[in-house]
């Protein structure tokens, strides 16, 4: 019984005796019977049993998704470059406008300045990298915060149902019918937003303020997804089995239901990163978000708006392409994660 990988003939003999063996009186059970079952189980999986962890399996399936893997690498590279922008780039994003800097103005892309320089001689690559840092920070922050909010609301509504469900979902509907852009603009333009003068929030011109606004308007979808998952999962027999074993409501939510909802949550969070980056760019483009001289992809694009059609157009092309690339990569990663986390995919 200690070595599972025994000679098959011996296994057959053992299984033969197992089936015929009389009911044992000993408390420790008839291991020959078990061997019979075990040897059948082995037929499905000859050789090595797959490694224990589900996450390793998910990782393997994700890596098999070529586009998603490539996107993840691009994102990691961009993220690293943005995080270490001061090391990667020899320039500052807002240098003191000395005559030397100004002399470099309007340089087209070159090895010296891969993304060219703007009208004031500032290196556009450096400005894009610093913007990227903000964009990624906002994307991740918004995704994290809206997932936390959405999961709490969705889990309580889905698990407890009834009155709780009704109240929480009407609250969610309330947020869903808000005309998003209008509210974003109004709130974002408010220099000192507060909740009826009680809680004061950082304004949207700061990264933290932007995260709060976008998360406040971005958690509803995840709440609905989690509620839906919980509604179906709470009827599963293993939940009843957990109840029969004496588990309390919160324990069932945390130990049994949430782990089974990780897939949709992770996928949604990834997509939310992309959406938040776009939303920030939109707001900043409309002049409501991050303000110059602080840079963001949105205000870089907005600032270079007038260059379209001139030979300075590279000033809008590079931030635009960066935005495009990063959102595209985030979505591909989300795609790959969805496939990898779905237990029904057999690839």
């Amino acid at each position: 019984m200690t070595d599972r990988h025994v000679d098959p003939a011996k296994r057959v003999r053992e299984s033969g005796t197992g089936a015929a063996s009389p009911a044992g009186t000993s408390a420790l059970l008839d291991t020959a019977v078990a061997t019979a079952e075990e040897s059948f189980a082995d037929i499905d999986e000859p050789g090595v049993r797959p490694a224990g962890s589900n996450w390793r399996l998910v990782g393997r399936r994700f890596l098999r998704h070529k586009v998603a893997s490539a996107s993840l690498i691009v994102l990691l590279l961009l993220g690293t470059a943005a995080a270490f922008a001061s090391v990667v780039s020899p320039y500052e994003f807002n240098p003191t406008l000395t005559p030397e800097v100004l002399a470099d103005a309007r340089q087209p892309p070159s090895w010296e300045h891969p993304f060219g320089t703007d009208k004031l001689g500032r290196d556009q690559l450096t400005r894009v990298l610093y913007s990227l840092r903000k964009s990624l920070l906002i994307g991740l922050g918004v995704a994290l915060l809206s997932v936390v909010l959405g999961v709490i609301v969705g889990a309580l509504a889905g698990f407890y149902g009834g009155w709780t469900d009704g109240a929480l979902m009407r609250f969610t509907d309330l947020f869903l019918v808000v005309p998003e852009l209008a509210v974003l603009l109004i709130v974002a333009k408010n220099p000192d937003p507060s909740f009826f003068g009680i809680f004061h929030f950082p304004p949207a011109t700061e990264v933290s303020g932007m995260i709060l606004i976008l998360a406040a308007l971005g958690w509803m979808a995840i709440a609905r997804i989690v509620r839906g998952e919980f509604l179906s999962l709470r009827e599963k027999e293993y939940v009843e089995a957990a109840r029969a074993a004496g588990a309390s409501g919160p324990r069932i939510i945390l130990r049994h239901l949430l782990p089974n909802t990780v897939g949709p949550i992770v996928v949604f969070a990834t997509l939310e990163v992309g959406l938040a980056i776009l939303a920030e760019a939109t707001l900043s483009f409309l002049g409501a978000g991050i303000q110059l001289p602080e840079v963001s992809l949105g205000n870089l694009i907005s600032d270079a708006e007038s260059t379209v059609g001139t030979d300075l157009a590279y000033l809008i092309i590079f931030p635009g392409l960066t935005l495009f690339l990063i959102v595209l990569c985030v979505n591909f990663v989300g795609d790959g994660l969805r496939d990898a986390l779905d237990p029904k995919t057999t690839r």
Partner: protein
Amino acid sequence: MSALTTKDQPLLDVQDLSVEFSTHDGVVRAVNGVSFALRQGETLAVVGESGSGKSVTALSIMGLLDRSGRIAGGDIVFDGTSLPALPERDYRGLRGAGLAMIFQDPLSSLNPAFRVGDQIAEALLQHTCDKKGEARRQAAHLLEMVGIPQAADRAREYPHQFSGGMRQRAMIAMAIANRPKLLIADEPTTALDVTIQAQVLEVLRSAQQETNAAMLLITHDLGIVAGTADRVAVMYGGRVVEEGTLDDIFYRPRHPYTIGLLGSLPRLGDDPGAPLRTIPGTPPNLLRLPDGCTLAPRCPYAIERCRGERPPLEPAEGDAGHRSACFRAGELERLVAEAARP
């Protein structure tokens, strides 16, 4: 109330239990005045077809009835405590520790996102054990007890890596983890194929012996009953129609329904081409139970009295342990013999 001849206090005493479900169509009376008792170490099989109230009885003992269901009457006394009156918090402490349940489908009763060993450890951590490492060690030991080879390695695997029989073994391990006094097995082998059924029943029986638990075995399979139970209660239309020892039920049935059930078992030596014997008619509509005996519309021996009056569950032939709810229990043997004559 109890039919036991012993003076011992029974471990579980279900007294005149009634359970109702409110639905759109009206009140469904799933269980109507069911009584039985169970002593420590004893196995009682509850037999009946779908909709006879077996599972609802089990769930009301566990306190796990749906929101729409409620205990409308009677009492369930477990180890001296009245369960329907128990506050939820205390009930939760009892579930898994004093009362444990094994469900029908081991495929869906294990959480797919959880290692098997950790799920068993979780059951331990909720009640008797407070150290994670110790619980894990015990979980592996329990898996070994239910006959899972290489238990320590298997404990680190996920349910999808287990076969059906192994999953039900794991469920049994989880149920006996805290050495409950009462084990409720709700059709524990229905989802398994026949060769695995015997193994799982054997595991269940030795697990029960090991922990000296009482077992309530719910099944519709008389074959399982014959090999496992000490006593049998036959349910029909939410009532116990006959109760007795294994021999009473199999060799001296005193209720037409029991006789019909036994008669519908296919036997070796039957003509392979012959249609299977069935009990004619359909189970009663639980929304509108007949006034008299619930079986009367389907019973070949029904008389006028059966339709107007409900037969009580009474000792058959002066034997206090063998009870039947049939007005004609005494004549049945002769009636059946007559019916069999051409």
